[in-house]
């Protein structure tokens, strides 16, 4: 008999008949690779687990406490940075308007009305410009191109949402 079936028996690790055992014993005396495989099988079967040094649970509790403390510090630092940034941004944005505090109520009212009417007229102008462009473009841009543009926009939107979700899951699972 050649080498292959003996190696297969050793790899399968299934019970052998007494005749197969005798054949295998005879083969092992002449085949070093199979002998090594059999020895490895035995060594793996009798291998015992190793235990950690005493006090593993206590060390885990300490590590958990340290991790929590670090997490708390990170959260505090994050909150602090966020608050400082928000206050800074608010002050930066509010600075031009702070002068109102020193103006009469009528001046402040007039400034507000002027600003609002400026925003309103700008929006109206943008809307008109957009409708003119669309009207002109619809004349020479074919329908399938519009469909393609909207489909691509939708696809990119979906891709963005999917990648965002995946990234969020990865961060959560890390």
């Amino acid at each position: 008999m050649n080498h292959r079936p003996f190696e297969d028996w050793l790899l399968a690790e299934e019970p052998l008949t007494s005749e197969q055992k005798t054949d295998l014993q005879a083969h092992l005396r002449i085949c070093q690779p199979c002998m090594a495989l059999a020895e490895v099988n035995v060594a793996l079967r009798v291998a015992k687990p190793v235990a950690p040094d005493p006090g593993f649970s206590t060390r885990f509790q300490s590590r958990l406490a340290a991790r929590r403390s670090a997490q708390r510090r990170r959260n505090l630092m994050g909150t602090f940075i966020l608050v400082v940034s928000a206050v800074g941004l608010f002050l930066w944005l509010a600075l031009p308007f702070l002068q109102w505090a020193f103006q009469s109520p009528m001046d402040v009212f007039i400034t507000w009305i002027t600003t609002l009417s400026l925003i309103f007229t700008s929006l109206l102008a943008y809307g008109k410009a957009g409708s003119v462009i669309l009207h002109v473009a619809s004349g020479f841009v074919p329908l399938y191109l519009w469909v393609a543009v909207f489909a691509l926009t939708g696809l990119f939107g979906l891709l963005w949402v999917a990648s965002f979700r995946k990234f969020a899951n990865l961060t959560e699972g890390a």
Partner: protein
Amino acid sequence: VTEEMDWIIQSQQGNDEAFAQLVAVYQTPVYNLCYRMLGEPEAAEDAAQESFLRAYQNILRYDQQRSFATWLLSIAAHYCIDRLRRRRFTSISIDDDDDEHPMELPDQSALNPEAEAARREEQEQLHKVIRSLDATDRAAIVLRYWYDFSEVEIAESLSLTVSAVKSRLHRARRELAKRWQEEQPRTHLERSHHESPAF
């Protein structure tokens, strides 16, 4: 509800004492897996601690229909595989011999000191050759032989197909045998003429 399931449910409700019980019960299996995977006691201690931390952080995701041991050992195996891959990139040799070995659990049936010494030597040899395996093959071998995981359980734990696990186990054992033969050519020859291993 078993005592273990009770601890798990309490841990999921934020009871640290209950999780400490789980750590006490599973410290040896998790540490042993990490030690067999990483080969060094310090790295194994660190990996085992980190595995428990990850289990603690993700305890709410544990599906109570699954075995807790399988879930926990799967976390440890994945962590060790990642660590071995990172280690390969930082080109730290894993073949360096270290004199330190962690405490092996005593064999109550070992009455013959010579046989025990021979067994220890054989186990050290096995520990050395296992370190030559690829990270995933190593995990498959450890889960199969130290934890009696079925091929299906190994596949679930390592996110592989059952056929991939079978082929990895065969390949890994062939590789182990080859290394085993290379490590002890003389001893092997002497033994091969006189005795055969038990089946």
